[in-house]
């Protein structure tokens, strides 16, 4: 629970100290640019917080990063350029979406392997299906009905 408490406190610190990304004083004038910046914020980790994006957090560093991204958006740089810039400065850790790389491949390959294994098991089971069972003859049906009547009586 100590860990939970620490998480909670960290969340509280960021959730309550300030208004977060929506602070009206910081917004860009162009709503489209602001929306693009907000979308980027959600993918950028607040490096000093615990598993939070800079969109949710208002640690001082998160605020600085937001302003940095807003400046770059206003300067007309593309999302990819901004991401590359952030990674060159802070490392891969800063992006919440893991990069598609060999080291991260397991993120997508792992669940896929589970699906493939499932499909294989399913196919194997289907092959081992015995031949179509014969339908009961009318006489057998009658006997069966009689038996179940006796049992439920």
């Amino acid at each position, binding site marked *: 629970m100590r860990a939970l408490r620490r*998480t909670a406190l960290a969340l509280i610190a960021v959730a309550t100290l300030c208004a977060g990304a929506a602070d009206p*004083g910081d917004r860009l004038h162009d709503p489209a640019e602001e929306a693009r910046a907000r979308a980027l914020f959600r993918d950028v980790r607040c490096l000093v917080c615990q598993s939070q994006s800079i969109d949710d957090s208002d640690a001082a560093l998160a605020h600085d990063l937001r302003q940095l991204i807003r400046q770059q958006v206003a300067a007309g740089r593309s999302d990819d350029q901004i991401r590359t810039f952030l990674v060159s400065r802070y490392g891969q850790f800063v992006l*919440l979406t893991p990069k598609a790389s060999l080291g991260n491949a397991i993120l997508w390959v792992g669940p896929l392997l589970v699906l493939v294994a499932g499909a294989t098991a399913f196919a194997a089971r289907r092959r081992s299906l015995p031949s179509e069972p014969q339908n009961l003859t009318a006489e057998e049906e009658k006997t069966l009905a009689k038996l179940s009547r006796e049992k439920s009586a």
Partner: protein
Amino acid sequence: MIDELGQFALALALVLSIAQVALSAAGRLRRDAALAGAGEGAAMATFAAVALGFFALIHAFVTSDFSVMNVAENSHTAKPLLYKIAGAWGSHEGSILLWCLILTGYGAVMAASRRLPFGLKASAVATQGALGALFIGYMVFASDPLQRIGLLQMPVEGNSLNPLLQDPALAAHPPFLYAGYVGFSVVFSLSVAALIAGRVDPAWARWIRPWTLAAWSLLTIGITLGSFWAYYELGWGGWWAWDPVENASFMPWLLGTALLHSAAVTEKRGALASWTALLGIGAFTLSMMGAFLVRSGVLTSVHAFAIDPKRGLLLLVILGVAAGAALALYAWRAPTLKDEAAFTPISREASLFLNNVLFAAATAVVLIGTLLPLIRAAIDGTPISVGPPYFNLTFTALVAPALIVLPAGPLLAWKRGDLPGVLQRLWVAALIALGAAIATLALVSPTNALAACGVALGAWVIAGALAEAAERVKLFRAPWAEVGRRAAGLPRGAWGMTLAHAGIGVFALGAAFQGAWRAEGAEALSFGQTMHLAGYTLRLDQAGSLFGPNFEAERLLVHVSRPDGTTLCEAAPERRMYAAGGQVVSGVAICPTLLDDMYVVSGERRAAANGGSTFLIRAYWNPWVRLIFAGPLLMALGGLLSLSDRRLRFALTSRVGIARARQPAAAK
């Protein structure tokens, strides 16, 4: 005095749990009922001893006995009684004691059960005893909840009065969560016992069913409570963040859900036997892993591996020993298990199989996403982040197909299903889903097709679940008297399934709607100024100071009016400053309507240009958010309803038996 008695009782519990293992194992090997009976007695005695220790800790918290380190660090004289008691499981040591209490409690109930056959029961009681010995041993040697402190360090009032954790939902959250986590321990023990015996059969699947249902339902409630607390207490307007601590509790739930469904196949058709046993081991393994990840502090910060390395490592060893032994046993015995029942691609089994593959893959997503940052950091030192963008996309992609197939599953016959017939019975549900999608596009937003699909999916699952129930009672196809008779005659398990399936649909509906159309706004307002959000108008009316027992607060009054101008509420968000800890905590003000929330948070006061002051107001409009919490509660209710099914209590195997069991009850 009571504290020392408690410590003694816990040490005694360790000895008793070891005796439980030895006696049950010896009884099993020698086929000696008296020895095995003594093992069962030891299981009950272990529980009694742990309960005594737990009582001693509660007593120390209630009487604010600050000579106990745990109480000194985690309690305060000014806490209300409920939170003094809840403080007993608020610390690492206390929560491990709660874990042991529930673990041995389940063990005692299993030992008292008279339905299990001799050999299986003795092995299971021995296994449960071994789990108990591992965790009680950890508690006694590395995590003593009743340790005394020196007289000089003894505080006068206690150190912790964390206001955020003083909350009813959070007080109840750990007991439910642990009751769920640890409930899977019995399934684990029964799986190990079945593997030892080399028999995983329909009877075994029926024995694990009540335990799985109980664990799954309680875990559902526990996770929902935690999510609800995070929603209304933390002031961020969201309800799930894919935080590693959340993921740790979610993984056993996902695998437990798969287990519930695969056990149904094993019970009814004898198929998937070895897979069900593997899930039985896996669910508790993930529970233990969750405990390790959260307890050791590995997860809360990726920068520091193991806050308390010694204890973290010990928990990892326990996890390795328990899960390693069980999985080794599985690898050895699974190939010998009989699992011959075959099924066609269109059958109830096949649909449940698909559910299992998708839920296993979803578990893999959460597991890999949570652990990969740790693994990468350990292997090549590259810190990476796996955050909500990954989880949202991958998880949804796997769960959406499961929800699409869900309504068809219960309508398909075992062995060989009739797909056209099933689809024919689902046309009303399909029409409702289509209608929901069109209504969403027309009334809410014509551009957000993805969200409309989500809404349609939720409606499809709810309508499909109800269609299946209607089918069973022959609604509109038989006279009302017969419908009533059929409804009364349906086993509770069937109603439970309907409720749980409708619950996941309700949740999906809420999550899709809230996710797509939540609105967020923030403005710095001075008195009389307004801001607009989702058609609602928020006007800052006044601000006042407020003095609580241990905090000073600034309370704003925000008048919220509906689009038509009528008043929705007077929201009163607060910013509390706690002098003792120096914390600033915002009290969220939530104005609920039937399904939606207007969620208002007050921010800091700022000097305005004209010399007055403005207040930063943040507000979230959360449409249909109620469904997000109501859905899981319906699911848990469904699980508990199934649990109350007579078939589970009396272990009757045939429908004839059920009919007979009902007759005396009806006669009363």
